[in-house]
């Protein structure tokens, strides 16, 4: 479904993405891991068409995303749900208005239907009674849930989730993952999730992609563990200091 081929990007004089190749099949979920600052968010922003690569291309169902502009890019983005690392909730709006904003501007639904959809959406992520709160009044986990609800409210096919578990306590982090898995199954989503809840993350994804030194090391997941001989990936997953890579 998504085919990223030989993607390259230089940012502030550093080769963040050197040669990224990654394929995501329909219905597949990919766990994207890698050290902080390795360019995971940058990669996701390329797939979303928010950043343009220096070289390489991204194909979505045979369409070159990097060459798309205007209306064509908008149609592609309509299929996306994107949950940003920071949540990216509009802080001048309440939770309700955050969810209602895309619905009001981009669909012809009446206010009644919008209300119904939002109530459902918030229930889906197990959030209640926060409609009239502002993002600054929410806890970290609630922000991420609201952001997920906002991403799902437009009925996307493909979802990107940038660090939904970072900065949350282990209990909430795992409940986020479970919630995420449930939504994915129910709505039949394809997607990429950035998370460092190892090994829990392996039981909700079919493939692991590690971004290391500007390149992808991929491996399949089965029954909650990854199958790989790659020493670099093994070392990262096991979190050991000794290995082929010397982390400073």
């Amino acid at each position, binding site marked *: 479904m998504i085919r990223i081929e030989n993607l390259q990007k230089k940012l502030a004089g550093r080769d963040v993405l050197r040669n990224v190749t990654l394929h995501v099949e329909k219905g597949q979920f990919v766990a994207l891991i890698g050290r902080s600052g390795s360019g995971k968010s940058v990669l996701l*922003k390329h797939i*979303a068409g*928010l950043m343009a690569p220096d070289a390489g291309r991204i194909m979505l169902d045979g369409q070159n995303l990097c060459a798309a502009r205007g209306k064509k890019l*908008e149609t592609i*983005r*309509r299929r*996306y749900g*994107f949950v*940003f*690392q*920071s*949540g*990216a*909730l*509009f*802080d001048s709006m309440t939770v309700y208005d955050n969810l209602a*904003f*895309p619905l009001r*501007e*981009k669909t012809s639904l009446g206010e009644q239907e919008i209300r119904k959809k939002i109530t459902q959406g918030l229930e889906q992520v197990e959030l209640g009674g926060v409609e009239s709160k502002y993002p600054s009044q929410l806890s970290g986990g609630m922000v991420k849930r609201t952001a997920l609800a906002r991403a799902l409210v*437009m009925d996307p096919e493909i979802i990107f989730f940038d660090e939904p578990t970072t900065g949350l306590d282990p209990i909430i982090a795992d409940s986020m993952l479970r919630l995420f898995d449930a939504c994915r199954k129910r709505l039949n989503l394809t997607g990429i999730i950035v998370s460092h809840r190892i090994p829990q993350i392996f039981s909700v994804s079919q493939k692991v992609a590690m971004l290391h030194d500007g390149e992808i090391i991929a491996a399949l997941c089965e029954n909650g563990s990854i199958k790989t001989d790659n020493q670099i990936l093994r070392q990262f997953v096991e979190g050991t200091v000794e290995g082929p890579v010397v982390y400073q």
Partner: protein
Amino acid sequence: MFVKFILLLGRTGTTHLRRLGRSGIFLVESLSCLVFPPIKWGRIVKRIQFIGWQSTGLICLTGAFTGMVLSLQGYNTLKRVGSEALLGPLVALSLIRELGPVLAALLVTGRAGSALTAEIAIMRNNEQIDAMELMGLNPLRYLVLPTMVAGVISLTLLTWIFDVVGILGGYLIGVKLLALPAGTYFGEISRYLEMDDIVGGIYKSLSFGLIMAWICCYKGYFTGLGAEGASKATTQAVVTSSVFILIWDFFVTSVVF
């Protein structure tokens, strides 16, 4: 050494030229949202409330004191040449032609412009602008254009308020303190003040409003990363807007008046 200097000059030149080009495109793209509806009136009203309404107190206060000091200084100067009667026109013309538009613009830049830049920069760094774009909502239409329109409308109205309050402040000093006849103060104003002065003042405040909103939005929109980037953008926005307003003021004065 010499070659190095030339190279440096060239590089700085192209960087600035590129930045100028980018900000020009930014302005044109934003304004083109005016031509293609929908226009977000609700957001414009909210922005006017922030830039305009919330600045009225400040503008009244500074306007009054500017008019008062003009009156005080003007009276002492005019007295030496024996034409105190012309105090009214002196205060009114200075305010309407020059001080009203410029001081109001600088004050609003300091109060509202800096906040606008900070707000947009934070939205950029929190990925809120990216999120908007991903929803298929053009941030220029939803964020930047309303700010520009509101900047132009607010600053024009605030300048009128500044002028009126300033003239009343001048009256207070001239008539109540320095015992000039009230009839003389206002009579001479209406005798010497011409439509051209008022129209010129309006031109100025319209363009100052646009310059302020344009530069402040631009600096916020293309901010550097993190809190440091946002704070730098804010400082630059205020400084650049103020300098541009003063340069443009000279230009307009020499061409239009």
